[in-house]
C-alpha cells in the first residue's frame, strides 16, 4: 500500500470515486487550458519576434473578443461550481442509518468512542460498507479529522460538535491525519482507520467493550441529577427528553430550533442560551462538571430515548428513585 512515490491516494470510501472524477474533470479542463495558452504564447513569441524592418501592427482591441472571453469562462465556471457542489452535498449529508462514533480531539491525540462502548485512541475500527457518522469535538484548540483515502476532512472545534460521515468501501488500514495546525506535535497527531470485513469487525467488537455509550450516559444522567427535573411524565421542571432529538423545539422567544447534537450540548453547557417555551430558566450550567467524553455519552443517551419504545419507559422508571438523592448533590454544586 505504501509505495515510495504515490501519485494518487487509495480510494476507500463511497465518495472517493466522485471526488476523483471531479478532480479529473478539473485536470482535463486546466491541462487543456494551460496547453492552449502556453502554445499561443510560445507561438506568438516565435512568430512575432522582432525582425529588422517589420513594425508591430497596432490594434485597438475588440469588443466581441472581450465579451466572448469574459462570458465563455463563466459557463465553464458554472459547470465547475455545480459539479463541485453536488459532490459536496454527497460528502455532507449523513445517511439516516449511520452508526455513530463520538470523537474527542485533544493536543495531540484522537479519542474515539463507539456506540457499543469500545474506546479507542488514535485508531478507529469500522466495518466495510457501514455508514459511519462522526460527532466530533475538541478539548482544546481546533483540529481537523482528515482521511486522505476517504477524500474527507472536517475541522474539529472546541465548544461545539461538527459532523462528518463516511462509508468505507475497501478493507485496509488508512492514514488519519490532523490537518489543522494545533501546536508542537501537530504532525504527531496521526492515527489510522482500520476498515474490516463485517465478520472480523464483529469479532473485534466482542472484545473490549465497557457497555454501550448510551448506558454510560444513562448512568451519568442519574448521577448528575438530570432526571429530577427532566422527568418522563413531563411534570418536571424541565422538558421531558424522550424523542426530543431531531425534533423542532419552540423557544421562549418564539424561535424554533432543531434539537440536534449541538443544541443538546449547548443546553447542558449553557442552559440559559435557548430556553424551551413554557419552562423557567432554572437549570444550572454543567460547564466544568462534564468532560467532552461524558458529554458524548449524555448526548448518546438522550438520542437513545425514543418515545415509542416502551422498554425505555421501563428503564426510566427504574431510574427515578436513586436520581432524587443524587439530584440534591448535583444542584448544590
Amino acid at each position, binding site marked *: 500500500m505504501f509505495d515510495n512515490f504515490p501519485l494518487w491516494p487509495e480510494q476507500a470510501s463511497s465518495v472517493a470515486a466522485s*471526488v476523483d472524477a471531479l478532480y479529473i474533470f478539473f485536470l482535463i479542463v486546466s491541462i487543456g487550458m494551460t496547453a492552449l495558452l502556453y502554445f499561443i504564447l510560445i507561438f506568438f*513569441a516565435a512568430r512575432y519576434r522582432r525582425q529588422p524592418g517589420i513594425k508591430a501592427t497596432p490594434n485597438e482591441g475588440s469588443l466581441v473578443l472581450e465579451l466572448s472571453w469574459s462570458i465563455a469562462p463563466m459557463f465553464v465556471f458554472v459547470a465547475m461550481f455545480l459539479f463541485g457542489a453536488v459532490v459536496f452535498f454527497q460528502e455532507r449529508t449523513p445517511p439516516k442509518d449511520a452508526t455513530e462514533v463520538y470523537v474527542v480531539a485533544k493536543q495531540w491525540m484522537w479519542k474515539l468512542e463507539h456506540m457499543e462502548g469500545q474506546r479507542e485512541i488514535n485508531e478507529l475500527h469500522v466495518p466495510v460498507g457501514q455508514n459511519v457518522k462522526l460527532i466530533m469535538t475538541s478539548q482544546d484548540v481546533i483540529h481537523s479529522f482528515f482521511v486522505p483515502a476517504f477524500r474527507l476532512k472536517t475541522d474539529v472545534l*472546541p465548544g461545539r460538535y461538527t459532523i462528518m460521515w463516511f462509508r468505507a468501501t475497501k478493507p485496509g488500514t488508512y492514514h488519519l491525519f490532523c490537518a489543522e495546525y494545533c501546536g508542537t506535535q501537530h504532525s504527531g497527531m496521526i492515527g489510522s482507520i482500520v476498515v474490516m470485513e463485517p465478520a472480523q469487525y464483529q469479532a473485534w467488537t466482542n472484545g473490549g467493550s465497557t457497555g454501550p455509550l448510551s448506558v454510560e450516559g444513562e448512568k451519568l444522567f442519574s448521577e448528575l441529577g438530570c432526571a429530577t427535573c427532566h422527568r418522563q411524565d413531563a411534570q418536571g421542571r424541565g422538558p421531558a427528553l424522550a424523542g426530543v432529538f431531531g425534533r423542532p423545539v419552540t423557544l421562549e422567544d418564539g424561535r424554533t430550533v432543531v434539537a440536534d447534537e449541538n443544541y443538546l450540548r449547548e443546553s447542558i453547557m449553557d442552559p440559559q442560551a435557548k430556553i424551551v417555551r413554557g419552562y423557567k430558566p432554572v437549570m444550572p450550567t454543567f460547564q466544568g462538571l462534564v468532560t467532552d467524553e461524558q458529554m458524548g455519552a449524555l448526548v448518546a443517551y438522550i438520542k437513545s430515548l425514543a418515545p415509542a419504545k416502551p422498554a425505555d419507559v421501563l428503564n426510566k422508571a427504574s431510574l427515578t428513585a436513586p436520581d432524587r438523592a443524587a439530584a440534591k448533590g448535583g444542584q448544590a454544586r
Partner: protein
Amino acid sequence: MSTPAAIVPAVEREDYLNKEYGVWSWLLTVDHKRIALLYLASVTFFFFIGGIFALLVRLELLTPAGDLMQADTYNKAFTMHGMVMVFFFLIPVVPAVLGNFLIPLMIGAKDLAFPRINLLSWYLYIFGGSLMVHCMLTGGVDTGWTFYTPFSTAFTNTKIIEAGLAAFMAGFSSILTGLNFIVTIHRMRAPGMTWSRLPLFVWAHYATSIIQILGTPVIAITILLVAAERLFHLGVFDPKLGGDPLLFQHLFWFYSHPAVYIMILPSMGVISELIACFSRKRIFGYNFVALSSIGIAVIGFIVWAHHMFVAGISLYAALIFSALTYLVGVPSAIKTFNWTATMYKGSIRYDAPMLYAFGFLGLFIVGGLTGLFLAALGIDVHVTDTYFVVAHFHYIMVGGTLMAYLGGIHFWWPKITGRLYPEGWARLAALIVFVGFNLTFFPQFILGYVGMPRRYYQYPPEFQVLNILSTAGATILGLGYLLPMIYLTWSMRYGKPAPDNPWHAAGLEWTVQSPPTTFNFPQEPVVTWEAYNYDEIDDVHPHEEAPVAR
C-alpha cells in the same frame, strides 16, 4: 510623443542620488525615489530572512523523520517564514518599491501627495520589522502566520503580542501608502493625463490602494482583539470564555484574502507595462484590463469564507462563497487573455524583463487554474490544509508577485540607478528561477492530493520522494534569487551608464533623465498622447535591432 535622444553626458548631471550625501540625507528624505530605495533595501533584507526560514523548512522535510531541528523550532520556522514573507515582503514589495518610485513619474508629478507621510510609512514598516526581528531573536512565534484562535489566544506561550504588534504596524504602513497613492492619483496628474491615459501600472496600484485602506483596518482590529483576549481574557474567540473561534477566521480572512490581491494586483500592473513595451504595442483591451483591476479589488472582498469550507460554516454559506469565488476568476482570466492578445502581431524581444513576464504568465496560469480546483467544494474538502494549497498560493504569491517584481526591477533598473544591468546574467537568472520554482512547487500539488497535510514536521515515508524533489527545486530557486541580488548590486557601481530611455519605452517616466532629478520634471509635462503609443514611438525610432546597450 517624441522621445528625447539618448545622451550620456561626460559631465555628471545632478540627480536624486548625487544631490545630497550622508546618512541623514537618506533617513530624513521625503523624495519618493529615495524612499523607494529605502524600501528596496529593507524588503530585500526581509526577503533574505524569510528565505532562510524557507530553506530551513525545506531542509527539515528532506527526510520523513523530524531530525534536523525540534518540532517547536520547525513550527517557528514556518511561522516566521510566512509572517516575514507576507507582511514584510510580499505586501509592500511592488507598491512600496516600484509604486513609490514610479507613480509620480508616470503621472507627471514631482512627488506623492504627502511626502512626509510617505516617509512615515517607511518608519512604521521599519519599526514593525524591527519588532518582528526582535520577536524572532527572543523566541519567535509558533502559530503559523494565520494566528488561529483559540491556539493563539489561550494555548501557545510564544510571543503572539509582539508578532501581532509587528504586523499591526506594518499594516498601518500599508494603509498610509495606499492613502497616499489614492490622493496622488486623483489630485496630482499632469495636465492631459486623463484616467484613460493612465498607465495600467497606475490603475493596478489604484485598485490595490482601495483594498489596503478598506481591508487592513479589519486585521488591525482583529489583532487587537486577539491581544485583548490573551492579556485580559476578554471572551471573543475562545469558546471557554464564551467566544467563537470561527469569528476569528471570518475576520482574519476578510482581510487576508483581499491581501492576496494586494500582493498580486501591482504585479499585474508591472506585467502590463512589460508586455506592452516588449511587444511594441498598446495593451489589447486597455479599458478591460484597467477595470478588471477594480473588479478584482471589489469581488475580492466577498470571497473570504472559501478558506473555511471545512471549518464548520454551514453548507449554504459554503455554496455561496464557492460561487462568488468563481466570479473573481473572471477578471483574472480577462487580464490573461488580453496580455496574450497584445503579443499578436507584435514585435517581440526577449530581454530579461520580458522573460520574467513570460515566467509570470506561465506560473500565474497554473496558479489561477489550481485556484479553481480549490473553489470547487467537493475537491476543497480533500485538498484544503494540504500541500495542494501550499503549492497553489506559492504559484500566485511567489510565482506571480516575485516574477513580476523581478521583471519590473530589471526593466526600471536603468531609470532607478542610471546603470544597465548585465543582460546575459539576467536572462540566465530568469531561466533558473522559472525552472527552480516549478521543481519546488509542482511536486507539492501531487503531494497535497495524495494527502500530505501542511505544517507537518514529520511525515509518513511514502511522501519522501516528492519532498526531495521539492527541496532540490528550492535549492535551485534560492540560487536563482541570489544571482540578481549579486549582479544588480554589482551593476550599481560597475554597470554601463544607462541612457534616459534604453527600451524606447512609452510613459512619462522615460522622458526624464536617468536617474531623475529630485523633482522629476524640469517643468510640468503636458500629456497629449494615449498610453502605450508604441506605434508613434517606433515611427521615430524605426525598430532598431538593439536599442539597449548590452
